[in-house]
């Protein structure tokens, strides 16, 4: 060990010098930097890269139309690496070093929870594009995906309308499924539905024969599925080989969109319902343009999905708020944002001033043999976001704080 000692201080000094030398250049006056923080590696990359691509598309389109306040948007992409502490570190880097005007990012609730204190600490803005479990409303986060009353509760309403009285809950073991199931149980108790069982498996779990047996033996009318990622592949395969079909026992999923259907294999999942706010097939003029532009940029075989659309919208909503505020300064943008209403691919969305979520239309769709999703039910009009479920008497005990 004697041999190495003199070199250590030199190496350390070099490393320090390297650290110190990356002081940021003065921001170009004609550019606005925006941060994109998604997992580009690790288990979440497959989903999150598509959201980042949709956000890049929105930035491109805005730049081609002249930018924001006459300035071009310059994306700074960082990798969250499917690792929650990394999200917090990279968010700090984007805010403090790159001095970005805002950040679009995150997918899992864990990554959002990890980033939340960073954005609150430095009073910076995060736009979070994925449906989530609610019970949160940070003053420095805008939520462009659905909260529970715009996805899970409409999903339950749909099952109830279909006369499904007995449900079985299957989910991955983390905060979203657990909170969702808490809400589902409260809903069931208030609406005369019966929850026959509640099962969790670790994220990434792929052995489902025991669980499928349990489900089949319980004979529910429907299954409410909050499994995430790869687990869905194994779950739906084993359901099918156990003889379960969408007619006998529909499985309503809230984390399976167009992108995931391809991975699961259409044969295994066709006919089952899903709950979202947007499908590639949603018929609006804005969606026609979005799907066309996305395929033109990334390839004709690509599909668009709800979280991608929510990320795409986030960039436009932020740009609109900046235009209205006349500056990218965070507090001014926050003040300008409430009430902003745009016609997006999913239809009209409006920023709620109270909780910084969006008014969104809920949609139930059935997975088609071609892998796309056909809408069979919608809420008719955009639903007011209610992350703490204050408008639902049966949910009174859920949001204790």
């Amino acid at each position, binding site marked *: *060990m*004697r*041999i*190495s*000692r*003199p*070199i*250590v*201080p030199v*190496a*350390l*000094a070099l*490393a*320090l010098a*390297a*650290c*110190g030398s*990356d*002081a940021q250049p003065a921001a170009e006056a004609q550019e606005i930097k925006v941060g994109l923080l998604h997992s*580009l*590696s690790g288990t979440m990359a497959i989903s999150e890269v598509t959201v980042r691509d949709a956000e890049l598309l929105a930035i491109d389109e805005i730049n081609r139309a002249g930018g924001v306040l006459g300035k071009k948007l310059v994306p700074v*992409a*960082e*990798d969250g*690496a499917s*690792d*929650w*502490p*990394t999200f*917090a*570190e*990279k968010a*700090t*880097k984007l805010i*403090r*070093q790159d001095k970005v005007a805002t950040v679009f990012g995150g997918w*899992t*609730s*864990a990554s959002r*929870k*990890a980033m*939340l*204190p*960073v954005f609150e*600490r430095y009073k910076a803005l995060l736009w979070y594009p994925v449906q989530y*479990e609610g*019970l949160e409303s940070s003053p420095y986060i805008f939520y462009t995906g659905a909260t529970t009353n715009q996805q899970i509760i409409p999903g339950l309403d749909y099952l109830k309308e279909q006369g499904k009285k007995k449900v079985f809950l299957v989910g991955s*073991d*983390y*905060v979203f499924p*657990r*909170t969702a199931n*808490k809400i589902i149980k409260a809903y069931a108790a208030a609406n005369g539905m019966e929850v026959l069982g509640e099962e969790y498996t*670790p*994220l990434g779990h792929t052995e489902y024969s025991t669980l499928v047996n349990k489900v089949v033996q319980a004979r529910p009318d429907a299954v409410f599925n909050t499994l995430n990622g790869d687990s869905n592949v194994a779950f739906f395969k084993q359901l099918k080989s156990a003889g379960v079909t969408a007619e006998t026992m529909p499985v309503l999923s809230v984390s399976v969109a167009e992108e995931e259907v391809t991975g699961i294999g259409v044969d295994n999942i066709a006919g089952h319902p899903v709950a979202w706010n947007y499908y590639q097939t949603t018929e609006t003029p804005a969606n026609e343009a979005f799907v066309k532009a996305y395929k033109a940029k990334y390839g004709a075989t690509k599909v668009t999905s709800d979280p991608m659309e929510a990320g795409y919208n986030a960039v436009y909503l932020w740009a609109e708020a900046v235009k209205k505020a006349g500056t990218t300064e965070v507090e001014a943008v926050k003040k300008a944002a409430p009430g902003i209403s745009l016609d997006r691919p999913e239809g009209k969305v409006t920023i709620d001033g109270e909780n910084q979520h969006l008014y969104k239309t809920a949609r139930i769709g059935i997975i088609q043999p071609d892998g796309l999703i056909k809408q069979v039910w919608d809420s008719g009009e955009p639903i007011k976001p209610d992350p703490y479920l204050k408008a639902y008497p049966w949910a009174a005990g859920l949001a*204790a*704080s």
Partner: protein
Amino acid sequence: MRDLIRRNLPFAAVAVVALVAAPLLLEPFRLGLLAKYLCYAIVALGIGLAWGKGGMLTLGQGVFFGLGGYAMAMYLKLTEAGPGGLPDFMVWSGVEELPALWAPFASPVLALGMAVLGPMALAVVLGTLVFRQRVRGAYFAILTQALAAALVILLVGQQGLTGGTNGMTNFFELFGRDLAEDSTQRGLYLVTAGVLGVLYLATRQLVNSRFGRLLVAVRDGEDRVRFLGYDPALVKTVTFAISAGMAGLAGALFVPVVGIISPALLGVVPSLELVVAVAVGGRHALAGAVLGAVVMGYAKTAFSEQFADGWLYLQGALFILVMTLAPKGIAGLLGRVRRARTA
């Protein structure tokens, strides 16, 4: 006397750079990152001792790091919730009453004590069971790795008790000081650097002592040491416990520095990353282990900032490059350079 000064000159130079130059030169964000690398360096120092000197390849050091981190996080969450209050994640998870397991962690002394003594106790139990049975080499490595995997499953499954996959985050203050303040973070950096320095000197002393020579002897010929009348199991258990205590302390420092603890930080992958860092730095030298942790930590940050899309390949390439060109790590390489110069 002159020899003593010459021997300690490199250490003093590093100490000056770390304690004076770094806080002056680096922006707060970079200083925070350096503090994080130094936390890992404390763990690496323990691995350097257990693996480099004692031949115990521990692939589950994340377990001890995590226990220390969670102990600290529990204390921080409880101060934030206040007396009778519940940590935020318990409210989301539907827990209505503070679990009994949590109660002792309201005291900072007990929490810090648990952060260090908890991992040491676990290491003593594990070491006693394993080393007495003469389990070593790959079997010991696999065992420690399995322990890391098991702890992650346990933490994720007990969401109401541990915060599940999310872990714990959103800490506001430590001993009454605002964690968001740059001055607090600078203070934490200095404490971390100081702890690392003291532990490094102490470990070096230990390695140069009779005990250290015995440890190396156990590594190189366990049976011979036993025939000479020593108890190799005891030597290994004590060493393993010391390295576990270091990892626990590092975890406790890590939480206020980085602001989060989650199962992702203590599973198999981060445990392996640390062993890789020690290998890159050079496991045969304690300074190599420390250097490796800082270099690999810095490389991870730098690569991922420069090449957000493909940085993992670069990190892998760096590891392969160092291991093929310098099997004894950076420390070994630098030593060779130095020997060539003085020869």
